[in-house]
Structures are given as C-alpha cells and as structure tokens.
C-alpha cells in the first residue's frame, strides 16, 4: 500500500523545496545563527542544524522520522511513522537507535488494520524519567464503531509499554477525549506536575475547535485556559513553566501568541505573529527564544523561524533561520539542544 503522507514522496538526500531537490544546507547561510543544535524533520528524516552546518541523522530506512525531543542525557526521542501506525524510539544524536519504546506493528500477514495504533507528540516529564504522549487507545473493537481519537497517556521511559485497543499497558491514562473530534493531543508536562495540552471539542454548532487545557492529575477535570472562539493549540512551554506559546487558528491563517501561565490560569495572550501559517512552536533551552514553523506566503515553503526574547514585553523581530528553498515538516516541532 502506498504511503499516504506527503513526506514519503520526497527524496531524503538533502533539504528540498516542493518542486525538487536543491543542493543546499541551510545552516551554511542562515539569516540568523543560533547556538547549540536544532533538530528538525523534513521528508521523513531528522536533520541536525548547528554552526558547523546541517546533517541528516542516518536513522534506519522505512517510515518517517518526526517530532524529535531532547532527553536530559543528550539523546533524542523520535516518532517513526508508517502508513498505518507509529512507534516511539530513543536515538542518539549520531543517528543510532538506542531503544524502541513501543511496538504498534501487527507483524501478521492477515492483520486487522483497525487494531493498529498511533503514538505521537512525545514529551519528557519534568523529572526526565517519564514520557507523555497521545495515542488512539483505547478505542472500540473493530467493526463496533468508527471512533478513533487521541487520548493522553504517560509511561516510564525505562519500562515496557504495550498499546492495545483497551489502553496502554504499563502506562497511566490522563484524558478522555471528546468523541469524533481528533481528541487530546500535544501534551506538555509542567514542572508543578500538571499537564497542559490541546483538547479538540465539538461545539455543537457545526464546528470542532481546540482549547488549551490543563489537568492537575490523571483523570482530573480539564481546566480550559482558552476559549473555543480562540481555537488555540500547539502549546509550547518555556523552561520554568510560566511562558506559553501557542497557535490560534482562524481558518485560512493563524496567529502565533504567547501568554503567562500561573497554575490553572492563563493571562491574556499577546500576538507575536499575526495572519501567518505558523505551527509547532518550541523554546530554546534557556526559555528565552522561540522557534516555530511558518510559510512566509500562502504558496511558500515551510521554514524554521526564530524570535528572540519571545516571552518579553518587547520581543525581537521574527527571523527566518532556514533558507527559503528549504521545506520542513511544519507539523513537527523543532527540538533545541544547548550543545
């Protein structure tokens, strides 16, 4: 069966445009040079951008490697997405697979594909020993229902977990999604033990919208931080847990916004970038500077952008990090390592 995502159709040899390959390593001529190493996804491959240039991590072939996250020990958590399932891996920055943390592939010749599962948006817990993620479990048995929505779970990084239709063995369930909306995604575990995330909800008025919510524990009631009218998602929290970046969707365009989180209260947000095709914000290790994906025009490539001091009252101007001919996976947030 042909892969269903756009990324698989692109060669993985180099950064590319929509139209074809270019022999370009963007970090050699960036508009802004950033310290440390930034990991991004393009065409199903993970690239590391640093002062010495950009390199592709030589991860095993097959599937798309997306959504990198930096672990405290300097390794990465990465999602490997196939046609009909995805798995979570721990890999070295040299591109060596260190561990496979889930196994959602039904290795049978006559499988029921509805028994497959997605695992996406991994996030490392505040103590560095657990991983939070979204998965389409539990869900009704095949042929019983069409429902398939994301729930939030956590599990120890060191232990085995098994994702099945009944749930995640070895994991802790955090949320119960609103049915037939896509569910709860993009968890961000906070230093105080709370979890911030995007929750998709049926308004009952013909639309599904996203609100940012926070839970103080597994199965606790979600406290909404934004309104359905704001339609905000893709939260990213700066080190310290107080500054939240998010993307608020207006249909054909979106706004990149920041606000201050205090417990279960979010301040009135400030718009950093208006009317953009922004997605997937992420913060620098220091918590001062913001990365995000954006296409500079409706038909343009998605590049990596940067705003210095994004949480301050007077943030820096938005600057493109990658060259305009580079086209990154906009649904995969960049991960920024200090060294």
């Amino acid at each position: 069966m042909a892969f269903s995502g756009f990324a698989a159709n692109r060669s993985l040899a180099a950064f590319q445009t929509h139209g074809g390959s270019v022999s370009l390593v963007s970090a050699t001529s960036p508009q802004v040079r950033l310290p440390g190493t930034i990991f991004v996804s393009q065409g199903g491959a993970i690239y590391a951008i640093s002062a010495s240039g950009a390199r592709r991590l030589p991860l095993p072939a097959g599937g798309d490697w997306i959504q990198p996250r930096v672990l405290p020990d300097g390794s990465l958590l990465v999602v490997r997405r196939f046609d009909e399932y995805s798995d979570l891996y721990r890999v070295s920055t040299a591109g060596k697979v260190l561990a496979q943390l889930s196994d959602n592939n039904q290795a049978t010749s006559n499988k029921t594909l509805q028994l497959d599962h997605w695992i996406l948006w991994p996030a490392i817990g505040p103590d560095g020993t657990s991983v939070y993620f979204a998965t389409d479990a539990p869900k009704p048995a095949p042929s019983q229902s069409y429902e398939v929505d994301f729930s939030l779970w956590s599990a120890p990084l060191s232990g085995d977990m098994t994702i099945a239709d009944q749930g995640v063995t070895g994991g802790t369930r955090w949320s119960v999604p609103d049915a037939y909306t896509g569910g709860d995604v993009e968890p961000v575990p906070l230093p105080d033990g709370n979890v911030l995330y995007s929750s998709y909800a049926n308004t009952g008025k013909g639309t599904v919208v996203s609100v940012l919510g926070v839970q103080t524990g597994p199965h606790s009631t979600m406290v909404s931080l934004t309104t359905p009218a704001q339609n905000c998602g893709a939260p990213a929290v700066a080190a310290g847990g107080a500054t939240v970046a998010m993307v608020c969707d207006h249909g054909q365009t979106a706004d990149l916004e920041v606000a201050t989180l205090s417990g279960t209260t979010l301040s009135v947000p400030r718009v950093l970038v208006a009317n953009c095709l922004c997605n997937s914000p992420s913060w620098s290790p220091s918590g001062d500077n913001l990365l995000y994906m954006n296409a500079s025009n409706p038909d343009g490539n998605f590049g990596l952008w940067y705003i210095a001091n994004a949480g301050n009252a007077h943030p820096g101007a938005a600057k493109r990090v990658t060259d305009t001919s580079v086209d990154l996976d906009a649904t995969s947030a960049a991960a920024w390592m200090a060294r």
Partner: protein
Amino acid sequence: MVIVAGFAVSILAGVVLYFLPAIQVALRDTGQANTSLGGDPQLRPVSASESLSSTSPFTLLLLGSDSDSKFKGDYLTQSMILTRVDPVTKHVTMLSIPRDLWVRLCNGRNGKIDQAFLHGGAQCAIQTVEHDLNVHIDYYAWIGLQGLVSVLNQVGGVNVIANNPVMDDYYPADLSGGNPFDYQRILVLPGAQHMDGTLALEYVRARHDDAYGDFARSQRQQQILIALRAKTKTLTLADIPSLASSLGSNFQTNMSIGQVSGLLPIAGSVPLASITQVVLLPPYTSTEVVSNQDALRPNWALIRSEVAKFFPAN
C-alpha cells in the same frame, strides 16, 4: 457493509475555476483531443465570444465523484459545491450541497442528490439543483478522484491549516491498485502544513471519525479550494501541458475557452475576506431514514431563502 467513501471534489472545481483557461489553451495548442471537454450541448449554449471576464456575476456547479475501479462510469457525485463569482466586487460564495440531501431528481423520482449525476450526468445534476434550490446555474465542472490528486500534485500541492486531527480507520484504499473495497488508516495532523494531492484528498475525503461527517469534509473541501488561490499567482504557460494531461478523462465542463479566459485573474485577485462559505447544517437539514436510507431532509423554506440571498438572479 461496504462503505462507499465520498469523494470531495469540489476541489477540482476549484482547479477548474483557476486553471481551466490555461488547460484549455493547452489542449488547443497541443492538439490533444478530449471528448469530455466542450461540454453538454444541451446545456445553455453560449456564444464563443461570451467571456467570463465580463462584469456579470455567474454561477458554477462544481461536481466531484469517486471514479476509481469500483465504478465503471456510473458515478455518484460525492461533492457538490454551488459557486457564485462576482467579477466586479470580487466576491465568491461557495455553498456545499450535502450528498445525502433528499430531493426530487430531474427524472421526477425522489432520491439523494448524489444520484442525479448517475441518472443523467451533469445536465441532470444541474436541473436538479436548479429546480430544488430555485437557482440558475451558468456552468459546471466535474472532476474524478484520480484527476484531483494528479492536478494537486502538478501544481505542487497546497498549504493548509488542518483544523483538527483528521482520522479514519475505514478510509477507502481505492487508489493503491489493490482491492478497491479495502480500507486503510489515515491521519492528517492538525495545524499549518503543506499537502500534496494524496494528503489533500485524505483531508477532504475522510469522514468516519468526524463529529460532523459529510458537513465537516464539505468545509474542508472549501478550505482546499481557497488555498488553491495561491497557485494562480505561480502558474505559467509552461505548466499547462502537464496540467492538461494530468486531468485526462477525469474532467468535464461546459465552459469554453472564451468563457473562461478571464477566470485566472479573477481567482487570483479575490481576497480572503470576500469569500463566503456556506454549509447546510441543521436547521437547514435534518437527519432522517427515508426509504430505508440515511438521508438529510431539507428545510426548503430556509434553504431557498439563503440561496436567494447568496445567489441572487442577475
């Protein structure tokens, strides 16, 4: 139960709206014959000199069908979008007509509106919509499933903000060359992203895990159409031959070269704020079982009132 997945194809209509002039010029210039172009001679004949670059508003019925190997030329229309373009005010209105709308068909029988094209092609679809919605339709454009994917790929895909995770464990696997009745799992991640033809098709066609089913994907179809506007600014004559060949028999219209010659600049100049999107949610429709079929019962008084407002007679 075999789930015949709906196919969003208004998109293609969007392609028509934006690219038809170039495509037809290419067909003329390359000498390629395509019997599906040139339209239905019984359908409101117009003179070759008539041009859409005139100042008169016009209506266009965009039709989309599953055209994979499950069907042998007998196509339902899984997508119907009635569009009105005002070249002067540069205002565009798009009304998605639900495929399950229970109506009086052109043959006098009652049935779902998606059967009109099956019974009598574009002419029946137009007559049915004109009669039931009390609206005049100037032109139509029809596109098949593979044509939509091909054209979107030819233009380099589109940038779209996916409103929510679009998931479907029962998505039809009818383009992969195997059993067209098989399923596949699909997932479109939320947020801004680039979509190629296949991903865009999944985005507008998936419906099973969706609180609003066909209504939601109608909204997504309109969203893709709007995103296609950006392509009008990058299209060049050099793109025409490949665009034309990618459509092949997956495209029909009654528009002539002269009639569409002004469409491209119009499409490129319509601002976002001047696009009105309409979907017939309750109370305009209500879900009922009619003749043992899940259908949408229209509230004609409400619907025709809205149609009269958004699609006034010239």
